[in-house]
């Protein structure tokens, strides 16, 4: 049974609030990079897209989710806690002395497949798992979430070529296309567009969607198990860095940090307002 878009939007709002509070409490975390991909994660984990079992994180038949943009760990940790992989209390200790995980993604957290933070690597591991699944005749899917800035890494394109050549149609890459890097907008920095053409020319099926539309996300991520294609699929999800908290969106200075003091209060209000508008 499908989960309604309304329920998923509600879930996204909850996750945003929990994530924001976690980072404000910790005084750190890549808040804007997390906000841009929360809807994607909610679609995957709550939209009945991925197969997983929080009680058995190592379940052989689970779909694999590889967060290649490891700086969005606050988003994934919050979703994993919410789905029951671990006690949500642990979020209160994010990046703190007595906590067990911090700013970049850590493979020893239940539900997390890899350590990432160094960009351009998780994608290759995802392709390796997808190839292994093919060799083993396992039917699980491998999802991987890339940052758009991550696509500057040459290793991304080594893997893109490899995955298409090896017909890894069990591999689904999602690019969180929020247009921002650390210092500037990508198109000012080194243009990444035309992104669809790049991926197509590397042999991938390409979808481009609004990455904050739960309906579009669920729609494009559905029925992937019976996809009639021998190519891997990339979904370029156009997003906004900081989505949901307007006062910190679309400004490079908010990369990699968490709002503090008055700014934190403003951010909370922004998020409340945006949730109210839904």
């Amino acid at each position, binding site marked *: 049974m499908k989960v309604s878009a309304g329920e998923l939007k509600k879930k996204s709002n909850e996750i945003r609030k929990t994530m924001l509070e976690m980072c404000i409490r910790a005084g750190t975390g890549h808040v804007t990079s997390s906000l841009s991909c929360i809807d994607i994660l909610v679609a995957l984990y709550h939209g009945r897209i991925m197969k997983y079992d929080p009680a058995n994180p190592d379940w052989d038949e689970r779909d694999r989710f590889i967060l290649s943009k490891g700086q969005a760990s606050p988003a994934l940790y919050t979703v994993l806690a919410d789905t029951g992989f671990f006690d949500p209390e642990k979020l209160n200790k994010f990046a703190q002395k007595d906590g067990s995980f911090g700013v970049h993604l850590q493979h020893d957290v239940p539900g997390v497949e890899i350590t990432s933070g160094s960009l351009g690597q998780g*994608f290759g*591991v995802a*392709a*390796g*798992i997808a190839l292994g699944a093919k060799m083993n005749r396992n039917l699980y899917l491998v999802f991987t979430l890339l940052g758009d800035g991550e696509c500057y890494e040459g290793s991304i394109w080594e*893997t893109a070529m*490899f995955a298409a050549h*090896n017909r890894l149609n069990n591999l689904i890459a999602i690019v969180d296309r929020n247009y921002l890097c650390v210092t500037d907008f990508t198109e000012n920095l080194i243009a990444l567009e035309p992104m669809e053409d790049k991926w197509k020319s590397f042999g991938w099926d390409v979808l481009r969607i609004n990455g904050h539309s739960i309906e579009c996300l669920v729609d494009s991520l559905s029925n992937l198990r019976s996809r009639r294609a021998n190519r891997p699929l990339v979904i370029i999800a156009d997003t906004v860095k900081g989505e949901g908290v307007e006062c910190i969106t679309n400004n490079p200075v908010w990369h990699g940090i968490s709002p503090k003091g008055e700014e934190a209060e403003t951010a909370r209000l922004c998020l409340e307002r945006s949730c109210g508008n839904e």
Partner: protein
Amino acid sequence: MNNISQRDAFWNRVYEIARKDTEVVVISADMGAPALDKFRRDMPSQFVNVGIAEQNAITIAAGLRLAGKKVFVYAIAPFITLRCLEQIRVENAIMDIPVTIVGVGAGFGYEDSGPTHHIIEDIAIMRSMPRIQIHSITDSVMASAFADISYHLKTTNYIRLDRQILPDVYHEGSDFTEGLSILRESDDCYIISTGSMTHTALELARDLEGRNINAGVIDVYNIPINGDALAEKVRNVKKLISLEEHFLPGGLGSAVCEVLNDYNIPLRVRRLGLSTDKLYCYKYGGREVIRGYYGVDKGSLAKDIAEYLSVESLCSLG
């Protein structure tokens, strides 16, 4: 005396292992070998060519391992270590995903290819990371044995193969579990060496014998060094020399000094190897010519070692 390359000995044995275990996968970064051609022909589903893309090779290897495969990943030594160093650090050292990294061309093995293809920093760099064992291979017998050892290993290892055919100094069935072996006994003095330099050390020791100097040879093929084993063997000797075809900072000699320090053995080590002051080498005409540039050709070494051991003082020791 065998005349098979370490590369062929290693991959021939991996071929046999993979015939029995379909979980074994070889990833090649566009590297060939007769044994690999056979592997690809007979077990195409267990052979992956990633092209000249070493960074991808390491991440694909890690992913395959997470999917349950036993992975050997192969390229020219400088490229499968340094080009993809950060991938190795994250996937293999930090995450502890065990794979076997196989590099060919240790030291000046690609003698006519220039410094891009020489690898004279890898021991220092690879041993600076936890969970990675360096297996610096001495001969084809050892190469074959380490195919089996790699297959059973639960951590990542880096197999450092020489490209040139070197004579066998070990015999079938040799025990490599200690990580180092005494190839020549001595009460007074040992040359501690690795890889191709072990062959040079043996030649030097034979020459010194003619001058009434009994120098022993310890071949170190597992780094980090087995400190207990090395300490036990050298605790009572009077002089130690380390010899390597590798830059001196962080190399075998450094590793030996660390062991001596940690085991409270008050011995100085005469470290022979490549000085970074000499930078990189654009000389051609064979390995010995390149070694000559760095002052570690056989003639220079014989002179250095003889001076260091100073015949008179050693004789008086006896």
